[in-house]
């Protein structure tokens, strides 16, 4: 458990299933919750709990981000390690976009950066954002990520096509660990 000044970051547990389910908002899909084919899915609470109960969950590095009152405000994660090329994907998601402008997001991000670049000694972090995730995009760019381009019309929902932007952050870019 990481006790920050504003946030508590801890491994996600099966009891967090409801909080995680709340992020699967069909009116506001999040890129990090699309499946491998970039399709929007809505799992049941039981399915999420079942996944979180699996032993492998301990290695999946999904963390709940709580405020000081103990309310889960979002989740962060590192996933999809590529050992050869030394990178992982960064995941940051909050129930309210406004949290990207708060110390909660700052502390969660600092935790991920420290974990990836200092502890795991990775060379690069990658991230993805849908064209509707403007808060996430702004946060990534403000924290040293560079845009690597946009995959056009790759997701369909709400009667239209949507784009996904890819980002990367190298260890040498100076994102200082906590």
């Amino acid at each position, binding site marked *: 458990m990481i006790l920050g000044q504003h946030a508590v970051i801890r491994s996600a547990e099966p009891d967090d299933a409801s909080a995680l389910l709340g992020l699967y908002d069909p009116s506001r899909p999040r890129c990090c919750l699309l499946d491998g084919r970039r399709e929007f899915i809505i799992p049941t609470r039981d399915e999420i709990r079942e996944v979180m109960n699996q032993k492998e969950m301990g290695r999946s590095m999904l963390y709940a981000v709580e405020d000081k009152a103990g309310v889960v405000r979002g989740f962060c994660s590192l996933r999809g390690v590529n050992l*050869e090329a030394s990178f992982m994907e960064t995941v940051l998601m909050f129930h309210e976009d406004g949290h990207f402008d708060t110390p909660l997001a700052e502390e969660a991000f600092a935790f991920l950066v420290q974990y990836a670049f200092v502890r795991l000694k990775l060379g690069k972090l990658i991230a993805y954002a849908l064209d509707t995730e403007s808060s996430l995009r702004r946060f990534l760019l403000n924290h040293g990520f560079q845009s690597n*381009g946009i995959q056009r*019309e790759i997701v*369909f929902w709400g009667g239209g096509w949507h784009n996904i932007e*890819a980002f990367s952050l*190298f260890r040498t870019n100076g994102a200082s660990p906590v």
Partner: protein
Amino acid sequence: MAVKSKTFLRRAEREDLDTVVGWMEDPDFTQFLYGDPARSPRQIRETIVQMLGRSAGQTVPGAIYLVIDSEEYGPIGMLSLQNISWRNRACTLDLYIGQKHLRNRLVAAVAFVRAMEYCFEELNLHRVGAFIYAFNERSWRIFEKSGAVRELVLPKHVARDGQLHDVYGYGLLRSEFEAFKAKHARSIENLMSSMVDDHRSSEPAPENLS
């Protein structure tokens, strides 16, 4: 589009196994593939069997594997459509030319066009994407000549021979492919020739689209 060619796509048969495994065991070929280069021949064979088995006539398959065949040369390569999303009408394409002497030939461009026709005109997809290593220039050149857009440049994204290399992400929308066909309707064979001509006399690097 009437392209006169003896190259065609077909479902993979069990008897294609030895041919495909032979390609997969060639280091010159696997350099352009994802995956563990230290896989044993048995593991490679099991992977291929699994892949070919999945191309059966499912109603909504998540992946389709086809053999690129030729009346002149026999099996030339393999086409795989991965991560097919019927909701997004999108997939990612891997196109492998297994026979080395054909890698820098018109057949690569023909196979690509055949693949796009299959994706857009038979499967009714909206978008085809592909990830190609930056050093595999002749492959991404074919994509670009067909109207595909280099959407992503993923820096230092793949390790080969102790070096990190960039990976390009391409996207080709149905409307772009239709525009490509309309523009070159009368000279599609010449266009496909131009997709590979520039490199026929250049360095003998393998020609895998992946």
